[in-house]
């Protein structure tokens, strides 16, 4: 299910394709097998309207010792859940909070870093669920180094 509440207006193009070359369609028994991938014609859905509070604009948040207060509705006031989001136990004292779009869904997820170890909330649910579905990166950095993020490619 796709809940479009937090997606920006605009036209989205949707298609589907078979994944592996052993999606073997219409193979005649006794002949050499031919393998193919199938793709669909793209279709579209246009999202219109929307609530300004759920726009794609970046909002503020605050972090302390593994506790995150995220101003999801963007009004600059801590309203508590469900209007805003409280994340507990994602990080520890002395760790560095990170944010980024780890999974490519255009929304920002949280992460935490300490001495070369990265814990990234890949599924965006505000909890550490292990790797997978979340992402653990080890030995990428050393004590005293500063983590940086970006869309390098």
């Amino acid at each position: 299910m796709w809940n479009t509440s937090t997606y920006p207006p605009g036209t989205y193009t949707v298609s589907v394709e078979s994944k592996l070359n052993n999606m073997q369609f219409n193979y005649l028994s006794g002949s050499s097998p031919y393998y193919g991938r199938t793709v669909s014609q793209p279709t579209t859905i246009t999202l219109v309207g929307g609530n300004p509070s759920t726009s794609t604009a970046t909002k503020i948040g605050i972090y302390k010792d593994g506790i995150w207060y995220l101003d999801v509705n963007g009004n600059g006031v801590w309203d508590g859940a469900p209007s805003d989001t409280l994340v507990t136990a994602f990080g520890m004292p002395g760790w560095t909070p990170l944010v980024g779009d780890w999974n490519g869904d255009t929304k920002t997820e949280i992460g935490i870093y300490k001495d070369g170890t990265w814990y990234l909330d890949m599924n965006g649910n505000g909890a550490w669920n292990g790797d997978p579905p979340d992402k653990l990166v080890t030995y990428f950095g050393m004590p005293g180094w500063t983590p940086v993020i970006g869309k390098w490619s």
Partner: protein
Amino acid sequence: MIDLTGRATYFTVSQFEFEGHEGNWYLVANTMNNIAKPGVGAVFNVKSPRLNLTIRNPDQYDGADVSGTSVPIGTRLQFQIDNNLYPVLVPFSFRGPVYHQTGYGANSDGYLDIKVKCENGTTLTRLYDNQLSWTLIALNVTTQPYT
């Protein structure tokens, strides 16, 4: 006629190439006036060269097809694929298993990828349903139609 030079064992079965040309396909030689190569039977048979995907609104009666339309932000949507899934569901007749195969990673395993492309060209690999995001890649298929 299609030219499979360089892609003889692996190619995309696109609607563009095969729509309207269902049936037996034969090997031909351009040195023989493009007639079927003697002694070689049909190479493959095209039956349904497409995957049809529709976008559905599960909150409307009978999950209305809203493909190609506009909907208000906040609408819940589903994707439905309702053809060409038989080879997926009956693996031993048409193919080997392609899900949870040894040697394949999380992004290369599975049967289908759904591509959702934004206006800015970004292709989304996950979509949110409330607080959880769900992957659109390497999807396992268990039913027909698949929603």
